[in-house]
C-alpha cells in the first residue's frame, strides 16, 4: 500500500469516526477553537498596538529648547554638536518667531497670551528627527544628558519616554497572549488526547483484531492520528473564521477611537494559516500523546468465552 493510499484510507476512517462520535469530536474542536480564538484576539490587538507604536516612533523626535536670549552662535554650536551625533537625522531650527506663528495658527483663541511676553515669548528650539532603525539607545541617552546640562539648553523633550512605556505594555500583552494561548492550547491537546484515547478504548477489540490479522502499527494508528489532525485543523479554521467575524462585527458596531486603533488591521493570511496549522499540530500531538506505548490495548485479551462448555 502506498503512503497516499494509506492516507486516503486513514482520512476516510477518521472522518467516519468523527461523524459517528460527533458530540465528543465537537467538544475537542471547540476547545481548540476557543484557545486559538483567544490567542488570536490577543495577537490581533497587540500587533495593531505595536504597529501603532512603530508609526509613532517613526514620527517621533527630540526637541531641544534653548534658554531665552540664547544667541545664534551658541545655537549653532549646539546644533553642530547634535548633527555630529550618530543618532540624529534631520535637524531643523525653530526660531521664536516661527514658534509664535505656529502657536497662533494652532491656538488662535489664545493669541493674546503671547502679547504680554515681549519680544521673545517662546524660546527657540531645535527639532531633531531620529533614525530609530540605527539608533544606539545608550549613546543617545548619554548625549541627551550632556545636552541637558548645557547652560544654553532649557529643556530636552524625548518622545521615547512615553513610547517606551507603551511598548512595554504591548510586550506585556504579547507575553500574556503567549502564556494564555499556550495554556489553552495545552488544554486543547489534553482534551483531544483524552478523546482519542476514549475512541481507541471503544475500538479496543477492533484494534486487537486488526493487529491479529497482520496490520502494522502504522496502519492501525494512522486513522487515529488523522482524526486528531482533522479535529485540530477544524478547530483552527473555526477560530480563524470567528476571529474574522468578530473583527468585522466590532469594527461595524464599535465607533470609538479605541476600537479603530486596536482593531485597525486584521491578521494577514499567513498569520491565519499559522493559527490553523497550530490547531492541526495540537490535534496531531494530542493523538500521538494518547496512543503512546500500550494504550492501544496490546495486551492479550481475556480468554475466549468459547464453545467448550457446549456439547
Amino acid at each position, binding site marked *: *500500500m*502506498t503512503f497516499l*493510499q494509506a492516507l486516503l*484510507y486513514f482520512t476516510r476512517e477518521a472522518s467516519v469516526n468523527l461523524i459517528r462520535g460527533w458530540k465528543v469530536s465537537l467538544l475537542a474542536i471547540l476547545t481548540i477553537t476557543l484557545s486559538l480564538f483567544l490567542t488570536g484576539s490577543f495577537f490581533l490587538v497587540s500587533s495593531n498596538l505595536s504597529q501603532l507604536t512603530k508609526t509613532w516612533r517613526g514620527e517621533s523626535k527630540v526637541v531641544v529648547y534653548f534658554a531665552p536670549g540664547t544667541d545664534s552662535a551658541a545655537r549653532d554650536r549646539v546644533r553642530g554638536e547634535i548633527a555630529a551625533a550618530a543618532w540624529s537625522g534631520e535637524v531643523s531650527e525653530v526660531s521664536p518667531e516661527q514658534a509664535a506663528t505656529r502657536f497662533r495658527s494652532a491656538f488662535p483663541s489664545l493669541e493674546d497670551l503671547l502679547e504680554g511676553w515681549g519680544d521673545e515669548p517662546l524660546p527657540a528650539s531645535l527639532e531633531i528627527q531620529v533614525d530609530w532603525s540605527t539608533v544606539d539607545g545608550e549613546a543617545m541617552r548619554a548625549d541627551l544628558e550632556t545636552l541637558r546640562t548645557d547652560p544654553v539648553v532649557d529643556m530636552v523633550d524625548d518622545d521615547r519616554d512615553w513610547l517606551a512605556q507603551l511598548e512595554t505594555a504591548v510586550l506585556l500583552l504579547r507575553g500574556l497572549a503567549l502564556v494564555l494561548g499556550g495554556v489553552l492550547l495545552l488544554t486543547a491537546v489534553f482534551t483531544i488526547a483524552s478523546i482519542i484515547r476514549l475512541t481507541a478504548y471503544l475500538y479496543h*477489540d*477492533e484494534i*486487537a*483484531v*486488526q*493487529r*491479529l*490479522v*497482520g*496490520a*502494522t*502499527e502504522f*496502519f492501525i494508528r494512522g486513522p487515529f492520528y488523522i482524526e486528531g489532525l482533522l479535529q485540530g485543523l477544524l478547530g483552527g479554521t473555526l477560530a480563524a473564521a470567528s476571529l474574522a467575524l468578530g473583527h468585522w462585527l466590532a469594527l461595524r458596531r464599535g465607533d470609538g477611537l479605541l476600537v479603530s486603533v486596536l482593531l485597525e488591521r486584521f491578521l494577514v493570511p499567513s498569520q491565519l494559516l499559522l493559527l490553523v496549522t497550530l490547531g492541526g499540530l495540537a490535534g496531531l500531538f494530542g493523538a500521538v500523546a494518547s496512543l503512546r506505548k500500550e494504550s492501544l490495548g496490546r495486551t*492479550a485479551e481475556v*480468554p*475466549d*468465552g*468459547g*464453545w*467448550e*462448555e*457446549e*456439547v
Partner: protein
Amino acid sequence: MIEFYQVTKRYPGGQLGLDDVSLQIPKGELVFLTGPSGAGKTTFLKLIYREEMASEGYILVNGRNVSNLPERKVPYLRRTIGVVFQSFRLIPRKTVFENVSYLPRVLGLDAKQQRKVAYDTLRRVGLAHRMNAFPMQLSGGEQQRVAIARALINRPDILLADEPTGNLDPELSEEILRLFLEINLEGTTVIFATHDRGLIRRVGRRVLTLEDAKLRRDEHLPGEMVPPAPRRRSEPEAPPDASPEMESAGLSEPVDADPIGAGA
C-alpha cells in the same frame, strides 16, 4: 513447517497453558488438535501466531524463531497465517465485506481487487450473498464462516482453526471440514482444534491430544470419510440463510457428539 521445542507457556498468575510440548508439523499437513476444555488448544495456536509468547522453549514457523521475533515483524508473520478465532472476533461495526477484506486493504489491493478476492473467498464458504450484511445480522454459523473467509483471504501458508465448527450444525460442520481438507490439498498446513471426536473420526489424520497443558498423544487415526468432495464451484450458491433454529433442526445425520472430557 511448525516446530515446538520444549515449549512451556505459563500465564501471569502461574496458570499453565502449555507444559513442555515438543513436536513437528511438516508443511502441507492437516493436524487435529484435541483435548478437553482448558487443555491448552487455544494456547497452542496463540503461540504460533504470537498472540502469546512462550515462557520456555522455542517455536519455529517456517524456520523462523517466533519467540524472539521483533515486535515490528510480527504483523508479517501473521499475514502468512490465517486464524479462525474461537469467538470469531469479527468487527461489529463493519460489514462482512469490510471484515473479510481488511488484510487485502492493508496489503494495498485496490477496491476492485478487494471486492474480487472477498467475493471469491466468501463464495467458498457460501456467503457471497451476505457481503453487505453486518455481523450482528448473521447467525452464529454464518459469522463463523465469515471468520473462516477472513482467515483464508490471503491464501495463508498456515491455517489455524480454533473450534471452527463449534457453532455449526453437523451438516455445516462437515461442509466446513471439507473446505479445510480442500485448502489443505492446495498445500496449506492446517491445524484444526476441536473437541469433536466424531468429526476427527470421520476424517482420520494425525491427531494431537492435549490434556492438562501436556501433549498426551500424537497419533495417526484412520478415517471413515471419503476423500474431500470436489469443489462446489459448479454448484449453485448456498441456499438462503436459515435461522439458527432452523439450521439445527432437521439434522440429516446425528454426529457423534463425544467431546472428550466434557462435563468431566
